[in-house]
Structures are given as structure tokens and as C-alpha cells.
């Protein structure tokens, strides 16, 4: 453990910028999770595995000679249908049930996906090389790969498109109505079953975009899904459901935290520190809430 990183402002700046660009991606995944949590009241443990699957789609395009950046168009389309299929097969049977049932069921899907991806694509760590080069800032002291800037830009574009879609389109209105009150929406003629399927599909598509971007900027591996789930869960509980600026802010905060944890604790504790942070946030939340309860007493 060393805090030398704070004595070199350029390295600090580098870590901050890296973290922010990474955090935008996390925020995109977390937005999908917030969407389905708010609408269907389901916590999808397989979220991270959908991300990795999207990453493999882009990676395969790269292998067949297509530029992996096109993956951000192709991956969401494929993932949308994967999401619908998962919904039809499993999720629609657990929507109205106990939350733990849905957590366990999606845990099962997660294990299944992990292993199927391991069979299909092998257990190697892979990345799709975009060949975008790097940008040098501040007298070449800060190095930013262009692919990271590209991925952050694309994430923001997709997020803005989605927000506009949710505000303006008919389906978006139906989704928001179902999130507010599923029963009332049903009475007023919204086909909630269709809305649920579409929500899950949109979530999977968002995961697909994020996965394609991750395969360009970082690396993907069949077993790397669970940390993404935990990150997005953490972002959602910090920001709250349906609070997009909050999701973006806490996503970037998490990204910066991770970069600094990487420098200070060492890379081998990076994932562990994310999980520990989750526990700490939940514990903090519990003590804050219990203080609120004491006022009532």
C-alpha cells in the first residue's frame, strides 16, 4: 500500500481521467439495471454475463475482419433478441414472485452463460483491437487511448437516445407507466407482459453496447461477468432508481475509486475492493436508515 500516487499530480490526473471514462461505461450498464429493477422489480445477476456476451459479438466481428466499432450497432440488435428469449423462458415465471427467487434464477442463468461462453469462445482473455491510437495531453504526461474516449462518447450518445426514447415514444410511456403502477397500467390498457419483455430486451441491448465497448477498450473473459453486476448494483443503490444524473455521477465516482484502488492497493485487490466497497456502502446505508427509524421512536 503506498500513497505516492498523490505526490505526482500528473498520475493523479491520469487516474481520474481513466476512472471517469471507465465510469461512463459502468453508468450505462447500471442504467439498464435500474430500468429493469424499477419496472419489473428484478435484480438480474446475469447482467454482467450479458455484457460479456455483447463483448464477444464485437470480438468475433473483429476476428472476421470487420472493424469492432460496428459492434456497437450489431451487438445491441442481437442482444435485444437474447434478452427477449431469456424473458420468455425464465424471467416471466419469476416476475411476480419473491425477490430472492429471481436473484437465484438469474444466478442460475449467469452460471449457465458463463460456462456456455467458456465452451464456445475459450477461456482466454481477449480484446478487439480498434487501432485508434492514443491522445497525449499535458506535455505527453497523460496518455489517453482514443478507444476510451470513443467508448465514453458512444455511451453518452446511447444514454441520451434512450432518455429521449423513454420520454417521447409510446413504448417509453408504457414502460414508465408500468414502473409507476403495474396494475393501474394494466387496467388502462397497457400490455404489461409486452412491456416487461421490451424492458428486458432494452436492458440486454444496453448491456450489448457496453460489452462491445468494453471489448474494444479493455479485455473480456467468460468469468468476468459478476464484477459488472456488482458494480451496476452498487451504482443503482447509491443513485436510486430512475435518477439518471445520479447514475452517471456515481458511475464516474466508482470508476475513479477503482483506478485509485488499483494504484494504492495493487491490481490483485482491484475486484476485491469493489466488492468490499459494496458491503461498506450497504452497511453505511443500514446505519443511516436505522438512525432514521430511531427518530420515529
Amino acid at each position, binding site marked *: 500500500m503506498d500513497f505516492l500516487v498523490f505526490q505526482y499530480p500528473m498520475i493523479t490526473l491520469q487516474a481520474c481521467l481513466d476512472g471517469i471514462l471507465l465510469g461512463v461505461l459502468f453508468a450505462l450498464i447500471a442504467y439498464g439495471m435500474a430500468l429493469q429493477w424499477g419496472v419489473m422489480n428484478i435484480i438480474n445477476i446475469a447482467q454482467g454475463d450479458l455484457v460479456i456476451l455483447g463483448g464477444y459479438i464485437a470480438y468475433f466481428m473483429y476476428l472476421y475482419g470487420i472493424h469492432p466499432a460496428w459492434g456497437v450497432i450489431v451487438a445491441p440488435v442481437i442482444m435485444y433478441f437474447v434478452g427477449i428469449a431469456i424473458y420468455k423462458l425464465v424471467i416471466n*415465471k419469476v416476475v411476480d414472485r419473491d425477490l430472492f427467487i429471481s436473484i437465484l*434464477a438469474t444466478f442460475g*442463468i449467469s452460471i449457465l452463460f458463463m460456462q456456455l461462453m467458456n465452451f464456445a469462445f475459450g477461456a482466454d482473455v481477449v480484446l478487439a483491437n480498434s487501432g485508434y491510437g492514443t491522445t497525449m495531453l499535458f506535455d505527453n504526461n497523460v496518455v489517453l487511448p482514443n478507444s476510451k474516449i470513443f467508448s465514453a462518447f458512444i455511451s453518452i450518445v446511447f444514454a441520451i437516445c434512450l432518455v429521449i426514447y423513454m420520454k417521447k415514444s409510446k413504448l417509453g410511456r408504457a414502460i414508465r407507466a408500468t414502473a409507476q403502477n403495474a396494475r393501474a397500467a394494466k387496467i388502462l390498457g397497457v400490455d404489461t407482459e409486452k412491456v416487461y419483455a421490451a424492458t428486458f430486451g432494452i436492458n440486454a441491448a444496453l448491456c450489448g453496447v457496453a460489452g462491445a465497448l468494453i471489448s474494444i477498450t479493455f479485455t473480456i473473459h467468460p468469468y468476468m461477468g459478476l464484477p459488472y453486476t456488482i458494480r451496476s448494483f452498487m451504482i443503482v443503490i447509491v443513485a436510486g432508481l430512475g435518477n439518471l444524473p445520479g447514475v452517471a455521477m456515481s458511475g464516474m465516482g466508482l470508476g475513479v475509486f477503482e483506478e485509485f484502488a488499483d494504484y494504492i492497493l495493487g491490481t490483485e485487490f482491484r475486484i476485491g475492493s469493489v*466488492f468490499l466497497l*459494496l*458491503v461498506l456502502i450497504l452497511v453505511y446505508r443500514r446505519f443511516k436508515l436505522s438512525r432514521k427509524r430511531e427518530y420515529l421512536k
Partner: protein
Amino acid sequence: MNKNNLILYIGILIFGLAAPFVFPAFKVQLSILCILIVLATTWNIQGGEMGYNTFGNILFYGLGMYLCASVQVGMFFPLAEWTESGGEKTFVHTPAQFFQGMAMGLVVAAVVPTIVAGLIGYAILGLRGHYFAICTLGLGVAAGEISGGIEIIGAGQGFTTPPFPNVGGLEARGEFFYFLSFLVLILTFIAVKAIYSTRFKLILNAIRDNEDKAEAMGIETMKYKIIGWMISAFFCGLAGGIMGGLVGYIDSTDVAFDGREMGVFMVLMAILGGKGTLWGPVIGATIFHVFKEGFWTFFLGWQYVALGVLIVVIVIYFPEGLMGWLREKYPERFGEVVDEADRKAQVEIK
């Protein structure tokens, strides 16, 4: 205890004592079965009786495993040199050292997780529902990742537990670990059965059914939740310590804090058998272990695919488990008084 039950218990005891001699080839499998039953039964205290669905009992299991092995080595030899590659070949335990170390290690492996459970429980047992589930999932994975970075217990390359000393012939190792795990199983069962016949179980059930009302009735729910978790941690730690010796090799994420396998297995076994019953986890663990070993043997490589499908199917179609299904079918056997007219009316409504 009525006569039928007594016969059943004596029958199981005799079977358990005779099993390693009747099925000598299955000694290791039977020991693992005992450990699995212990894990499922202790998970049931939280998940079934208390309504707190935890993925975090794996934490105590892994902690017990590392502690038992560390104490067993550290009592006689320098631990850091042991965990460096090849250390287990330089130092050799004499039989007396091995058994002393094992006994001491098991004591530590039981006590420390209990204390840890008390401390962590105070912090996180106030969380409700899915927040608790995800938090414990995070704890289990974090423990695995962090223990994989600590040098003195072997870091990423693992920790070889002391090999069994050369006493009592070839069969001695299997028999020793079998009877040890069987003893822990009996202890767990007696303890859990004793707990379930007291007011403590009723309090746990009250917490499950409605925690706020239980609090309003004047029950200090926090105290009972923590005690419940400490009981689980005690037996999980013991089970982990034995499993470490049995497997002979500890890896941070694949053996000790294996949230993806053991951590889910204990939940599944309890749900398969029927959570909230005394016998459910025992039956569930037995069926699960037989199924798992069959599948692991004949479809090697596809076991995780099968596991994923199994989880989804069990959770969707048998959320009440085997005991729940039996209870619905033969309610009289479970001491529920059923009015014949009432039952007929129910059938007609369906």
C-alpha cells in the same frame, strides 16, 4: 420422541457407522455428503427459519478452512516457508503433531468464524431482503479475491494442507476424515434439533414472518438474528476445517471461498429439500449430491451448464422443495389437522 423416530435415528446412526466399511470405495464421497448436509442444515437456520437469504455462509466455511490449515502448520513450522512452493516437502508432521494440530485447528476454525459472524452480523443483519442477499454475495466474493492476494496463506498459488501421517494402513486417512465429518454432522443435527424445539425457533420464525411486528412484540430481533448467524458460522467453520484436510489443497476462489459452487450448493440443497424444515436440507443434500456426482462423472465439462439449468428449474418449479410438496400432499403426517370437508371444498374450487 416416539418409537418410530427412535428406530429411525438408531438406523441412521448404525448406517453411518457401518458405511465406510460397507462401501469402502465411497468414503470420500460420504464424507463430502456429511459436510454438504452440515452446510445445508446451517444455511436453513438463516434462509428457512429466519427468512434471511444469505450467500455469505461460504465466508465462514472458507475462513474455517484457511484457519484450520494455518494453525495446523503454524503450530510446528514457519507458515510463510510452508506456503512457498515445495514447503510441504521440507517439513513433515509426525502423527502426534498432525492430530494435535488438527484438533487445535478445528477449535480455532470453529471459534473465530463465530466471532466474525457476530461482528459482521451486527453490521449487516439490519439489511433486509435482497440488499442482504447481494451484500452477503459481495462479502463472499470479496473474501475470495482478498485471500487470493495475501502472501502468507499462499496467495494465488494455493495452500497445501499437511498430508495425513503414515499410521494405521492405507484406509486410515479416509476413515479418519469420514468419522470426523460424521461426528460434526451428528453434532450439528443434535444442536439444530435442540434449537428447533425451543422458543428460539419461534422467534426466528416470527422474524421471518414479520420482523416489524416481532419487534413491536418486544423481541430484540437483532440479538436473535446475530445468535442464529453465529450458530451457523460455528458449524460452517468446523465443516470448512475438515473439508480443507479432506481435499488436501486450498485455493482462494476455487475451494475455500467458492461462491459459485459451494455457496450456491448450500442454498440449492436446502431449497430442493424444502426450507424451513428439519429434514428438508438433509434429504435435499443427499439427492443433490447423488445427482451431482452422477452428472460430474458422466458429463464432465457440462456440469456447470447442468448446474445452471438445475438452479433455474428448481427455483421456478420447486420453490417449496420436496418437504413442501409432501406437506401439501399428506398434511396429516406433519401434524396439521385437516378437516375432510375443508379439503373437498378446496378441490372443488380448483
